[in-house]
């Protein structure tokens, strides 16, 4: 049985799910635009940061729609636990989000200089999560 981490989550509505998915799409769109600006480390790092935001917003959207709850603030573990509980497809979404959050954690230690390969991975994970979020809202 999965523990209910009520204190680390907050209630949210279907309307919020739609808003968060719109955010996610826009973050990803801008991430892809920035990624296409050039190979400079500054561009790829900024694009990766936006990809992380897209992934988090898309996960929130899926959770708001399917569970009526999303994680609070910076609590990554709660976010991963929650999105994993969305059916079907929550397991894969949780893995994609975990990879994006690892990238975000590294940023806290000043290591957010993202290589081209890492950026491609981040954009792919973000796209996976945006498609997942859209799929949950379309059920």
């Amino acid at each position: 049985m999965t523990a209910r981490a009520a204190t680390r989550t907050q209630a949210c509505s279907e309307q919020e799910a739609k808003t968060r998915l719109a955010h996610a799409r826009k973050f990803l769109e801008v991430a892809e635009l920035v990624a296409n600006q050039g190979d400079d480390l500054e561009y790829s790092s900024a694009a990766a940061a936006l990809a992380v935001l897209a992934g988090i917003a898309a996960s929130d959207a899926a959770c708001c729609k399917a569970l009526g709850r999303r994680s609070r603030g910076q609590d990554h573990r709660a976010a991963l636990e929650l999105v994993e509980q969305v059916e079907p497809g929550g397991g894969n979404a949780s893995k994609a989000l975990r990879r994006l959050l690892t990238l975000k954690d590294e940023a806290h230690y000043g290591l957010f200089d993202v290589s081209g390969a890492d950026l491609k991975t981040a954009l792919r994970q973000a796209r996976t999560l945006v498609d997942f979020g859209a799929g949950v809202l379309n059920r």
Partner: protein
Amino acid sequence: MDVSQPYTAICPTLDSEVLAVLAGTTRPLTGREVARLTGRTSHRGVAEVLTRLVEHGLVQRQEAGRALLFTLNREHLAAPAVEVLAGMRAELIRRIRDLVSAWKMEATHVSIFGSTARGDGGTQSDIDLFVVRPDAVSDDDPQWRKQLDDLAESIERWTGNRASIAETAGSEIERLLKQDRSIVAELRTDAISVSGADISALLDSE
């Protein structure tokens, strides 16, 4: 079918709404949470449905302090049927996407909009599609027209609803943006892109 709640074609009661919510998560939910996710303000009807479903073994109930938590029993013989019913709207979108992606004459863009995209239609609602034709293709090209006719007929067979296709050429999008603001507003807010460029990128590029 009712495009907002396709499962009511098989089970037109609150039971199907409750089951669709439980099929969407492995998280144990309280009765009040289930009621909120079904969009109901009254908890009583949902509680009665949950009690009945627990009696049939299709829903599992556990105690957590003073609360009762409910989950779909995914090992129940009826669980696969519930999952199919809960996924009907996603299945419709998948079928449209598959059919359009097999077109020999590729569209610049195809999306679903209107009530089907918003999830607020009914059994009488049209299923609205927005199709952007490549400029190189004439609007009376027989192959192109056949693709659109096949799509409309397939949707009607799959759902019982009429498909309404709004078609434009790529070069006419700019004019559409200026002339028909209502459809553009609907597309921006709710459209689900099924093929080609994302709808917002397409509209913003003009």
